């Protein structure tokens, strides 16, 4: 699809204006790490575009959701060998934003172009759909506005959603997104339960909720990118606290296991702004209470450097997968934190 100038202009006006910021946190210890060279082995004539989403399943297989000429979903084994493509030509694939794998190894993608969240079973067939692709031939939408002129988010309609997470009961949380500014909660069968958040920078308000994760207790962590903070909500979407020391959280993830850690990437801007890149790009490791334990990485194009990390997988505490927008790649990182 070739967008017209009008669409490009509309997209530009929609882009959230935020300056990528230097993190407030000072004197954070560096965590040593290395990146596996040429980790993903792609067949001839198959290419990754922008590395938008990466996630691993319980067997260590890796799913990559990428913006190529078409948005595509690839599966690799734990060694990085290409296994298969899933969802070729799917109606819900237009502009990749995230992929996550749930505890039952279902693969969920979030597509910012079609405004959909799609659950594939482990065999790769779509089994649950949230949101709906706007009709190509539908006319101008009717907007429902609130008192301050913001559109009221409808229960089952997303506006450029960004990410998905689940609690232990299987309830589904969707960060929504660039257009709306909310988090929506559904039961495991996709029935709407609750929604929280409006656009702004007050407590509980959101400015591009870009990434979302849950802990074992069902608390919901939202990377409130435009406001340079992680906001923590309880399972009923009541605001609990916020962490504002780690820059603009583009990507967050929470590890499995009895002691959970929170990773957050203060990614360098995808606008290739070299001034901001000089003071951003690092990933923080934190306790769930926000205590910063260390950081690693910086912006750059070489192996082990980061080119706008867009999604992280941290199923294993010291083995992190990162998908990068501007480098068109996925890196597998091995951390060596001091004991």
């Amino acid at each position, binding site marked *: 699809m*070739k967008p017209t100038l009008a669409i490009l202009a509309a997209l530009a006006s929609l882009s959230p204006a935020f300056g990528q910021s230097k993190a407030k946190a000072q004197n954070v210890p560096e965590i040593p790490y290395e990146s596996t060279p040429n980790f993903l082995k792609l067949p001839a004539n198959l290419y990754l575009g922008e590395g938008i989403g990466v996630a691993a399943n319980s067997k260590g297989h890796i799913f990559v959701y990428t913006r190529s000429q078409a948005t595509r979903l690839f599966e690799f084994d734990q060694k990085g060998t290409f296994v298969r493509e899933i969802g070729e030509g799917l109606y819900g694939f237009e502009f990749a934003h995230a992929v996550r794998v749930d505890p039952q190894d279902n693969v969920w993608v979030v597509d910012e172009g079609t405004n959909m969240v799609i659950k594939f079973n482990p065999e790769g067939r779509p089994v649950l759909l949230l949101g709906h692709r*706007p009709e190509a031939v539908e006319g101008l939408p009717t907007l429902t506005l609130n008192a301050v002129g913001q559109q009221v988010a409808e229960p089952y309609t997303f506006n450029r959603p960004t990410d998905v997470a689940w609690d232990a009961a299987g309830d589904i949380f969707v960060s929504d997104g660039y257009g709306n500014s909310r988090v929506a909660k559904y039961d495991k069968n996709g029935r709407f339960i609750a929604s929280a958040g409006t656009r702004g920078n007050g407590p509980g308000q959101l400015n591009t909720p870009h990434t979302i994760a849950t802990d074992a207790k069902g608390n919901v962590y939202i990377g409130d990118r435009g406001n340079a903070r992680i906001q923590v909500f309880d399972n009923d979407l009541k605001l609990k606290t916020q962490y504002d020391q780690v820059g603009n959280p583009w990507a967050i993830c929470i590890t499995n296991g009895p002691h959970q850690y929170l990773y957050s990437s203060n990614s360098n801007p995808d606008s290739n702004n070299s001034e901001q890149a000089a003071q951003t790009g690092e990933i923080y490791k934190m306790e769930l209470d926000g205590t910063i334990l260390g950081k690693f990485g910086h912006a750059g194009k070489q192996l082990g450097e980061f080119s706008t990390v867009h999604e992280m997988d941290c199923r294993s505490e010291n083995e992190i997968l990162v998908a990068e927008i501007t480098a068109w790649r996925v890196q597998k990182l091995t951390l060596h934190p001091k004991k």
Partner: protein
Amino acid sequence: MKYSHVLFAAALAAPLFAQTEIAFDSAPNFLKMPEHIYLGEVAGVATNSKGNVFVYTRTGTSLTEGGSRTFSHGGSRLFEFDPSGKYLREMGVGVYGFNFAEGVRIDPKDNIWVIDRGSSMIIEFDPEGRVVMTLGRKPEAVNEPARGPAPGAGRGPGGPAAAGAAPAGGAARGGGRGAPGAGTPGDNFNRPTDVAWDAAGNIFVADGYGNARIAKFDKNGKFLKSWGSRGADPGQLDTPRSLAVDAKGNVYVADRGNKRIDVFDNDGAFKTAIASVGTPWALCISPGAHQYLYSSNSNNVNSMDGGEIYRLELDGKVLGKFGRAGKLPKEFGTVNEIDCRNPNELFVGEIGNWRVQKLTLHP
């Protein structure tokens, strides 16, 4: 944030009195899809006399710039399955009019008729899968709809209200003549929705989202007449979403925006309206000596309220209902078409759940 849609939708959907629930089953995983072939929104499902199942699904239109104009390509696929749900073949690969699936119907001679809302065309295929007749003409180019909510504002809700409103530029996109909703007579459609035939082979087209009329053609495709205009008065239409013809040639129209089924005689004279079945979205009339009328009160994309399907006598008497909106088996995600060749074995195509369910009723 709280939503008041529950009360609103309840008022739309709830019948005035309790209805008999019809017991039913859904065959699990009925359609067996080959690897690397996926259904998108299932706009249409229909069976032929052999029990083969035809599915017309939305797979994503693409637009290309050709200098000063924008052209639409592809966007829908037509699949055939055998009576057990085994995949047989794809038909109409690359056909010019496959842009945005709206429905598929099979006539008594097993010809396959596709209704495409994007190209504003009705396309007849013979049983071998060759194009034998077309109605309407695909617009040469499309005007891209402006969707430019300000930052922080969301996209508006879809559903009957939004879809029923006459959109700016709708006539140009849909290809109909004259202003949208004017019920303009003629061969061209503006986002048509359905097709049906009477015993003589006359063709009836519900037209549609852009226009608000029913068009009648003879069996050779010659335009005879059309009736209806946008409005709520008896005989007027507000998004005629589906239609069906009984053995006597009466025409039943799912007048979605007006929340009623309008019944016309074979020449378009208004006879009566049935207003007890929520928001009719998909209609089907079974063949045979005793005909039944099915009507789906499909949920719109922004709710999971309603969703049930009604079984009626042709005179409008409700015999029972079954199902509800949802994403599980035996639940419905915006049913867009019903096939009822066998009155107790229905096929439903769902927009919201990208699937076809085969339902067995136990009335």
